[in-house]
């Protein structure tokens, strides 16, 4: 599965979001996620992709930002693209 597909599963199963809303340009704010939701979402991404997201300086607004971050951290931390 691609990063995008795995992320979609996470969104639908863990956050119970409608699959149709998940477009690369969609913002996390548009799903009604508050600050705590976002923190928990990042935690679930860490678990699913076996990556460690830095504690600070995480700037992600859109789904595409999330995909890019996962791919970048996976490459850095696992030495290869997971997607």
């Amino acid at each position, binding site marked *: 599965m691609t990063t995008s597909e795995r992320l979609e599963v996470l969104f639908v199963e863990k956050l119970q979001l409608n699959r149709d809303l998940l477009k690369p340009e969609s913002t996390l704010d548009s799903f009604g996620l508050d600050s705590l939701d976002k923190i*928990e979402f*990042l*935690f679930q991404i860490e678990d699913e992709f076996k990556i460690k997201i830095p504690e600070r300086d995480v700037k992600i607004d859109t789904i595409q930002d999330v995909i890019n971050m996962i791919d970048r951290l996976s490459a850095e931390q696992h030495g290869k693209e997971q997607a």
Partner: protein
Amino acid sequence: MRRVAVTGLGVISPCGNTPEALFSNLMAAKSGIRRMTHPFAEKLGIRIAAEAEFRISDYFPTRMSAFDRTGLMALASAMQAWKDSGLELDDTEKERAGVFIGTGMGGSQSVDESSRAVYAENKERVNPLTVVKIMSNASASHISINYGLKGPCLTYCTACSSSSVSIGEAFRQIKTGYCDVALAGGTECLISNGSFKAWESLGVLAFEDPEDASASSKPFSKDRSGFVLGEGAAVLVLEDMERAKKRGARIYAEISGYGTTADASHITAPTIEGQARAMKLAMEEAGLGIDGIDYINAHGTATAANDVVETAAIKKVFGDRAYKIPVSSTKSMHGHLIGGAGALEFLISVLAINNNAVPPTANLKNPDPECDLDYVPNVGRTGLEINTVMSNSFGFGGTNGVLIAQKI
């Protein structure tokens, strides 16, 4: 001083998730105690518990990731009670409405999950919502947030008397004019690996009855061996009586007395004097003498110490009249909800008034000679005249809480 009405009831319990189902099951002596199905139970010496059949999706349409199970059960109970009461508050009224919740150990399941992640799974990070799930005041706050109640939002932690105390303190605030409306009750869920181990190690949990696991809690019985851990929540709507009457609310009962005392003696062993004094204080506040109580819902944990001491305390307060009062321990069926116990049992006591019936002490076939009151053994009683009820809760640390309600 104002009078205080009970105008709404909500419950999630091992014996039913509505007040009607709960009372009907208790009257039929149907136990909510059984063998646990959790995988962790395989490693326990004692594997019985009283679990609530509580499916989160039945109550909440969205994910509730910031909640411990205690918070979910408390909010689900509050939602029932709120709906039952028919309350509608404007912004000004919401500023004079409070939340008063008792819990012994707060978000204990979430403590367990976090500990497992750190110590067993060597995770670098735990669930980021761990703090908001664990904090003991979370349940009260979730209720306050859900209804926009902006008066006092308080959490009481006095072990097994936590939610008698929370209801008693809410009663006092309405009585003295600090609040007009309160959602008051308690919640607890200690059915997780670490919590269960702690209780098991303390040696206060009942052994499983070899013939019938559901009959393992045997209050006042010679062969009692301790209590069965239960989970659940109960929340009641309390309201200034005049306000309740004015809006035509259904009034289940009036709370008329509350007594709380400390034994100041021992961290687990109860005292006759401390318990008796709490009962007397509640009766004095209610203006009732020893002939004034028609039913006592006992703390009745089925530990060796409690049942003998509580029996002696009731006799110390009521003298010979003690033998004529039906006293039952419904923990024989719903287990011990610890911080949620007081609220659940007070709610049951209020239902005893409304049904003119008293639920039994189940599994009492072999009475302890030192426990010689009328414990309503095994079979509930109907067709009685139940005008006043007393609900006893006595906690570790020597914290006693007694509530009295009466028919209006």
